[in-house]
């Protein structure tokens, strides 16, 4: 994309410290983080467990305030609430069990006050694109975990976010499903032109999907490496067989191995 050099969102000097509870010490969970997301890029964040990846997403989305530093989205500071134009998909299944897949997908768009015919057009387009149209009338309880998560992705996409924040949305799924969901995500990314920030613990997923990968240290999480993958925009999971894929995962792991061992030691 021609606009790949425009900065869409930026974090500068962002930290998050959880205040001390009772007699405990305050927990320095994140940062300082400096990051500039380019409009339209696919950026993944990998890091050892507990390094503050999800905290980073919460802070970027405006769901949690930073303890210091500033966040800007499209030039405006993010503070206190989720800005218009940002869509979030969570790791946990957040589909509403009392609504059908269709009404779940339409929820955010209706909430945004779009006219019902526009909502219908967008929902039908998104569900069709994702192959979910046959299940439009089904309730989440009738769907598998993977499909429920796709309904959540559809719900977010229907609002046409310009920045899509994904917090390990495939974390609970098996490897084969993840690869296919990754392909679908790439297709959606190309179709919508949105910027994607994907939090993941899977090196493969990051190496496969991203234009750039931010590798985080153990807590308090900071970026220790930024990797450009150089993949073409047209790509899918078949690139796992390319030799560059192995080199990429090797490079990420080289940085991450030490950090993961530290995180593991700290957890013991």
């Amino acid at each position, binding site marked *: 994309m021609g606009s790949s050099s425009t900065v869409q969102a930026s974090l500068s000097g962002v930290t998050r410290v959880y205040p001390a509870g009772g007699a405990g010490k305050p927990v320095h969970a994140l940062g300082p983080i400096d990051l500039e997301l380019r409009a339209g890029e696919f950026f993944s964040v990998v890091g050892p467990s507990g390094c503050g990846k999800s905290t980073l997403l919460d802070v970027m*989305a405006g*769901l949690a305030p930073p303890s210091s530093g500033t966040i800007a989205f499209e030039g405006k500071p993010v503070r206190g*609430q*989720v800005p*218009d134009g*940002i*869509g*979030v998909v*969570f790791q*946990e*299944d*957040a589909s*509403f*069990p*009392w*609504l059908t897949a269709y009404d779940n997908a339409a*929820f*955010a768009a209706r*909430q*945004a006050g779009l006219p019902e015919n526009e909502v219908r057009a967008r929902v039908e387009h998104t569900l069709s694109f994702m*192959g979910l149209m046959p*299940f439009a009338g*089904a*309730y*989440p*309880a*009738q*769907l*598998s*975990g*993977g*499909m*429920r998560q796709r309904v*959540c992705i559809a719900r977010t996409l229907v*609002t046409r976010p310009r920045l899509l924040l994904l917090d390990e949305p495939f974390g609970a*799924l*098996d490897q*084969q*499903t993840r690869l*296919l969901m990754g392909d679908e995500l790439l297709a959606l990314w190309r179709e919508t032109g949105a910027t994607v920030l994907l939090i993941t613990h899977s090196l493969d997923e990051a190496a496969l999907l991203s234009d750039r990968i931010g590798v985080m240290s153990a807590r308090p999480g900071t970026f220790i490496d930024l990797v450009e993958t150089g993949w073409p925009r047209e790509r899918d999971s078949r690139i796992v067989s390319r030799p560059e894929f192995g080199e990429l995962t090797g490079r990420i792991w080289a940085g991450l191995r030490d950090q993961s061992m530290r995180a593991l030691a700290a957890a013991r």
Partner: protein
Amino acid sequence: MRAAADVDVPVPASPPAVRRAGRLGDSALVLLGLLALWQFGSWVVGAAVLPAPAATLAKLWAIMSSSDFGGHAWETGRAFLSALAIAFAAGLAIGLLLGAHRLSAEVAEPILVALYAIPKITLYPIILLLFGLGISAKIAFGVIHGIVPVAVFTMAAVRNIRPVYLRAARAMRLTPVQTAGRIMLPAALPGIVSGLRIGFSLTLLGTLIGEMFASQRGIGYLLVKAMETNDVATVVALATLLIVVATIVSGALLALNRRLDRSPKPGR
């Protein structure tokens, strides 16, 4: 384990009409079995102790056709419906308030559970002193039976709303009022209806017990009078009437509960 189900295929559900017919058939079988058991029991212990189903039905018809039955039924119905309205309204209000405030809920829960465990009949003399011998005492006694389960279930239903729903609500920029109406209410409704179902049964129990002591009117009074004169046929006929009414309403509430509760069940 979940891989196959996760890829795409939803579990095919049998058509609702077939399932409903199956459930009705099962209920009819259970009913027939109970009637057979009743008849058999009557043969074993003798009709003087346990009148047979047919004789009971005839007796019930005779009681209901008698001129003063309408007045007694109206008295019980009036007391019960008043008690139910108060128990539901107050129980819901208490439950919603406690559910919204974590500290209050933690303080109140053991107190409510303790109240629930008290044999409330021991409080009846106090209730009679407070409310006198009329309908108010019956209503009050019905209320103290029904209010606690409604409050406890409502509180639990509100507190057990999955946090990710509330995070999703914030990510979709819902106002607090919208979050209450569009997320919290539908999420908590199945649990609340469970509480109403149990509250219904206990309020009926309380009202009838109230009528059995220190009362000159109502079905509970008729029951006690029949017991005093060893009129077994009347006792069994009235008990049957109460059981049928309670079962029908409780069944209707259970059906409503099932309709509302579409949450994915564990193991899916």
